[in-house]
């Protein structure tokens, strides 16, 4: 499973990527939407974990662009805000349950990724 992490908090994504790699999940990270798009030029990912609020381009917009590029990619939103509207928008975009409020327990995150992967495998 290859994962793309996007969050403007450098310390967060880098550490999270490292921790995921300890658990056998290959994770690349980006701190901006542009950087994320660049990464997808070279690689494909199974799952993208996106912050809802990143500079210049919103998490939702980034999700749409990434989805256009790699339709098979799954998405999980991560937020520090947790507002009702945001929850509704993100749920509409990705489906129920793919919306996590920071700080996130890494085990929960992995479980969610696995659920998404399994679901897509079942479907395929």
């Amino acid at each position, binding site marked *: 499973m290859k994962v793309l992490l996007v969050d403007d*908090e450098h*310390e*967060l994504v880098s*550490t*999270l990527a*490292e*921790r995921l790699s*300890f658990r056998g999940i290959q994770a690349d990270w980006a701190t901006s939407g542009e950087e994320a798009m660049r990464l997808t030029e070279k690689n494909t990912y199974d799952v993208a974990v996106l912050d809802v609020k990143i500079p210049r381009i919103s998490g939702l917009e980034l999700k749409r662009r990434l989805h256009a590029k790699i339709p098979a990619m799954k998405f999980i939103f991560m937020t*520090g*805000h*947790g*507002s*009702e509207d945001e*929850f509704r928008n993100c*749920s509409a975009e990705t489906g*129920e*349950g793919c*919306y*996590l*409020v*920071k*700080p*996130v*327990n*890494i085990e*929960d995150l992995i479980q969610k990724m696995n659920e998404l992967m399994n679901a897509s495998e079942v479907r395929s």
Partner: protein
Amino acid sequence: MVVWKKLKPKFWDYVDAAAGPFAHLFNFRRIWQLAVLLTVGVAVVPLVAITAIDYQVTQKSIESEIALRTSRLVSNTRRAVSFFLAERRSALDFIVRDNSFADLNDPERLQSILKNLKSSFGGFTDLGVIDPLGYQRNYAGPYRLEGVDYSEQAWYREVLERGVHISDVFPGFRQVPHLIIAVKHEVGSGAQFVLRATLDTERFNHLISHPEVVGGGDAFLINREGKLQTPSLSHGKVLDTISLPVPSFSPNTELIETEDGQGQLNAIGYAYIEDTSFILMLVKNKKEILKPWYKTRLQLMGFLAASITIILVVILGVATYLVNKIYLADQKRITTLHQVEYSNKMATIGRLAAGVAHEINNPLAVINEKAGLIKDLFSMREECARDEKLMNTINGVLSSVERCAKITRRLLSFTRNSGVTTQRINLRETIHEVLGFLSKEAEYRSFHISVHVDEDVPQITSDQGRLQEILLNVINNSFAAMQDEGHLQVTVRRHKEQSVSVTVKDDGCGIPKADLERVFEPFFSTRAGKGGTGLGLSITSGMVQELGGEIRVESEVGKGTSFTITLPIQTEKKEKPSNEGSLGR
């Protein structure tokens, strides 16, 4: 007092609990008083004035009518009495002119004249002819009076002087009251004689005591000394002296008012009868004659009293009703203002809390990951993994992060609710969540808190945020009333078919009975100046109503208070898909 308590309108004892922009614009009691005073004044003053004028006019007209009638009666009776006497005098005059002295000296002739007089005029008792020397030369009548010498008597001299004499009434020989009429006749060449007749007074009395004349009073004749000449009803017998003063002479009929011995006011009509010493008097008790007036007066007063009563009742009713309406409208206005203010406040707090939560969540996430990484790294090195102290420390950091996360999530879940949106709610969870906010205070003050939810309580559909606010307000209120180590009991029960009740019972100071009705009024606070705004319970009540429920309070001073919130299981608002559990995890 009991009646007043029942009738007392709501606004009467209203005291502005708040100052500032939400203070009442009106002093309701003063508005009521002003309205009542002005309308009563405008309505009652003209009524009283009109009644007073009518009173005066009616009294005057009745009095003058009575006076007029009395005076007419007196003058008519006087004329009748005068006519009676003049008639008899003229009859005698006719006899002396028609008969010569010699004729009249014939006893038979005199007898026949007396007989004719008796049958035609009536009232004549005897007739006597007195010669120029004053001796009675001839007499017809029941007594033997021939030869009596009258020459020295006063009446005889008066007849000679004035040509006629009408005597006062006197008892005479038979003790029957009668009077004398005597006329003089000059034969020519200076010779003269006098014809004298005695009249009994019965017909005379009849004239005066006629019921039409008396009319509820007392009518009689007196002479100039005040001696009664005819019998009276209440002033004595014939020839008694009356207790009233003799009225002064007047050629006309006069009306006077005098007070008798018993302090009674009498209206007296009197007239001097010409050529006699008689005075006709008609005495009426003023009270008696004014009886019709008293009746009218009573009716007038009754009407006035009834009108004023009706006016007062209507004005009081209308004024109270209207001022009460204004009061209620004003209350509504204030409540609305409060709610707006409260919503604004909540929105501000919401924005602030959300901002803070967001700002904290990001660094918290970094700490979480960094600490997690340290733990991961330690776990990979055997000597570190075995170091319990190290692992405990790092686990301590992680659990603290978890605690902080819980706090920020609670803040977010509390503030994200704006506007009523309904969802399925597990009341037990909601209550524990709310108690979680207050857990620190409860811990510091050693409160004993128990939550009991009956087994058959279903999930309800309601607005989570509103419900949290309601419970938070009510529990906060209980906390404020409780002593340290107090007890708080939250009980949830099924209430009837379609609702549940949440009872929050504390053993705090309680609410006095007088305040109990007002606790849900805006700005009513017993903690004014001590941090209480008086908004909590009024807003709470508003929110409970918004959710279609109701809130009740029972309290006993010193024992504690219990708030019972009844909520429908199903609110009629549109349900939104459940997001329970997915937000935090």
